[in-house]
């Protein structure tokens, strides 16, 4: 498995999916060797883990040593081989300029503080600012330079993956999203094993029509070189067929899932206010439709003024979103707590009366499942893969701001609607388990192996 992010290094759905799938595979008795690109943390004991890129000296040191090898707790059949790499799942070429923004952070007790964050929403201490957080050990220079560096990283990772692969025995290669496709292809070529690529999102989802040609080429190459491709929804499968000319007989759909981990019985927030809370949780990027959320918020507030909107997440549109909220005159009703993880996510769900995912293009969307498993009613855009498998949620077109506001108001106004959505939604989400998804992947593996023989 060429994958991403193991706890606590999880910044989005991709890591959650890799982790959930791998754990379920292990439970089903399948052995997984997980090749994990792992940044080298300079101060690993920091409370808010900041992923640091390794310096060339560190990389060299790491490459000389054997790859870090460990067995994650609770997964008997999984062995993780982490390889030093500066790749991160949501990086994009051209991200070299680190901008910082001042945002308001809401604490667990409702207190607020102003903090400085970079454009990924990660907190930056004042001392860090001069030396940018994402410093790839190269002198700061033009974007082309950095872009080149990123593609170089993709190939270096591939090389390291091949080295690991040659010393292991396995039946099938499973590569998650574009940055690992090159590694998948290389390992397949070196070992003759069948390749399965898992498409969690495409360049069209992330960038609309402004695709990065090199990323598109890598994605296309991966999908075509693979023996089988897994799409996270029919929506994504459709994109692979129409935009990547994928062979329809190769592409299968395996939906993501969620594991309810018993749920930590935290007491509700001490300040249970008269205000209702509507939550946006996700990367604040074009793909996630933050501006539609804000425009709907504006309309909702005209009817339900006692409402607060929380936009939790990081991303390149965080600044423009803060500006838009101010322009709409609702800045005081919208809070940007930055990127949340772990208990903070649970806490914000427990505060929320409603979760909204207005994504413009969402291959799947795990966050609504998290909301439902936290008993929060959900509105999702029809342009999401997850809407293919959820019935007991409200659905809107992302651009239909009026309808979004209409539905938000209805949920806020009518307790019976919230009750019905919660009751049925919780039940529905319980059927979506990673074990089921893992079984789907195993079926695809078998088909991929059969194609070779």
């Amino acid at each position, binding site marked *: 498995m060429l994958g991403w992010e193991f706890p606590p290094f999880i910044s989005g759905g991709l890591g959650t999916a890799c982790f959930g799938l791998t754990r379920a595979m292990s439970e089903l008795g399948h052995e997984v060797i997980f090749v994990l690109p792992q940044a080298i943390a300079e101060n690993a004991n920091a409370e808010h883990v900041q992923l640091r890129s390794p310096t060339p000296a560190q990389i060299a040191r790491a490459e000389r040593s054997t790859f870090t090898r460990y067995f994650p707790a609770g997964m008997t059949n999984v062995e993780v081989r982490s390889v030093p790499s500066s790749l991160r799942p949501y990086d994009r070429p051209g991200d070299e300029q680190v901008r910082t923004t001042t945002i308001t952070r809401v604490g667990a007790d409702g207190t607020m503080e102003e903090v400085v964050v970079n454009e990924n929403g990660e907190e930056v201490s004042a001392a860090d600012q001069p030396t940018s957080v994402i410093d790839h050990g190269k002198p700061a220079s033009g974007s082309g330079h950095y872009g080149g560096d990123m593609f170089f990283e993709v190939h270096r990772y591939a090389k390291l993956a091949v080295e690991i692969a040659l010393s292991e025995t396995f039946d099938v290669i499973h590569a998650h999203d574009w940055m690992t496709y090159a590694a998948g292809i290389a390992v397949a070529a070196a070992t003759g094993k069948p390749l399965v690529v898992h498409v969690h999102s495409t360049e069209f989802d992330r960038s609309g029509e402004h695709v990065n040609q090199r990323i598109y080429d890598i994605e296309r190459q991966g999908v075509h070189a693979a023996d089988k491709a897994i799409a996270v929804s029919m929506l994504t499968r459709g994109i692979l067929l129409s935009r990547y000319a994928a062979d329809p007989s190769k592409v299968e759909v395996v939906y993501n899932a969620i594991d309810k981990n018993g749920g930590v019985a935290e007491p509700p927030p001490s300040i249970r206010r008269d205000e209702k809370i509507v939550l946006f949780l996700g990367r604040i990027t074009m793909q996630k439709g933050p501006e539609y959320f804000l425009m709907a918020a504006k*309309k909702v507030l005209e*009817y339900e003024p006692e409402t607060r909107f929380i936009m939790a997440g990081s991303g390149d549109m965080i600044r423009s979103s803060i500006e838009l909220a101010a322009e709409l005159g609702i800045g005081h009703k919208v809070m940007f707590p930055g990127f949340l993880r772990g208990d903070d996510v649970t806490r914000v769900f427990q505060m929320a009366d409603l979760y909204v995912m207005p994504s413009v293009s969402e291959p799947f969307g795990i966050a609504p499942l998290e909301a439902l498993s936290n008993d929060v009613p959900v509105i999702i855009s029809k342009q999401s893969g997850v809407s293919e498998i959820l*019935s*007991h949620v*409200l*659905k809107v077109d992302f651009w239909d701001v*009026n*309808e979004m*506001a*209409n*539905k938000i*108001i*209805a949920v806020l*106004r*009518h*307790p*019976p*609607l919230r*009750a*019905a*959505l919660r*009751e*049925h939604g919780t039940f*529905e989400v319980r059927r979506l388990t990673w074990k089921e998804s893992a079984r789907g992947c195993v079926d695809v593996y078998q088909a991929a192996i059969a194609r070779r023989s």
Partner: protein
Amino acid sequence: MASVCFYFQVHQPYRLRRYSIFDTVSNYFDDAKNAEICRKVANKCYLPANQCIYDLIKLHEGRFRVSYALTGVVMDQFASYMPEVLDSFKRLADTGCVEFIAETYYHSLSFLYSRDEFREQIRMQQDRIHELFGQRSSVFRNTELIYNNEVAAAAAELGYKAIICEGADHLLGYRSPNYVYRPPNADIKVLLKNYRLSDDIAFRFGNRGWSEWPLTAEKFAGWVNDVNGDGFTVNLFMDYETLGEHQWADTGIFDFLYHMPGQVLKQGNDFKTPGEVADSYEVVGEYDAHHLISWADTERDLSAWLGNAMQSNALTEIYKLEGAVKAKNDPVLLSDWRRLQTSDHFYYMCTKYFADGDVHKYFNPYESPYDSYINFMNVLDNIQSRAK
């Protein structure tokens, strides 16, 4: 001799248009869609079925007889969109072989929430039936055969000699639905739907996976004849839309309908309307319904209309407005409020089988039960503001 008693429910709701919280005008109904559905169903079902039944009455010289319950709202829609359907019902009424059954004008659940409204709506429907067909009904049936001893008593109090309801297994036990019963608390005859034979036509007729497929007129007439020795009457109660709409013409449903009466008569059995059944046969026992039943789904209960918090909330809220709406003395407001009482609006909010995509979904103009609740509550909000 066994009597076959046909009773057809004829109903179409006034479907709501998309009504958002931002809407302020008080036209709530989707006229274009209602007209379109009315015309479509008229051409597929009402007109050909009425013609077929008219032909059968003529062919068998009055020995073929049927009954209908037409809701007020379907008669209104025929008048607006398809007057020729009303004409064809008038022609049927003129044969003297067709009985019209009483029910609430708005096909509502008013019995459960307001007895005044319940009685008023029955009176309205009866006036309309009289105006159109020159008849007064002697038999009553409540919306979707919602029934218990109380409903029977209320119908008896209004002077009806019989009431139509579901022959529920858990109330009948070993007994047969093919007799006439009475409730423990009132003097009225109860006619029970034979759901097996009714559903053979209404649900299973076109199902090629059914072991009895294809159902021929001869075979069905044989099943009717088998009742002799354990019953007097086979009560075939169903939606009229079964003919041509639920079971499309290409299933052969009209051929079946056309040939079945001849086969039934040939074996010495006959056809009676519900009123004639009540006049012809004595009560053999008690049908004791303490809890509400209906003819819906396998549960035969009210969960299709009152199964979740949204449905009970919407129903409670609409009947809360009764006093305010009536005090306004505004006939348009009153009519709007009453059209919202039609049970279909609450049926659309049913979450029971929503995820399985079954019959509930087929008849639902909304994408989800939640959308239908939101829409309904937005309309109700506007009605409320008009009633202030």
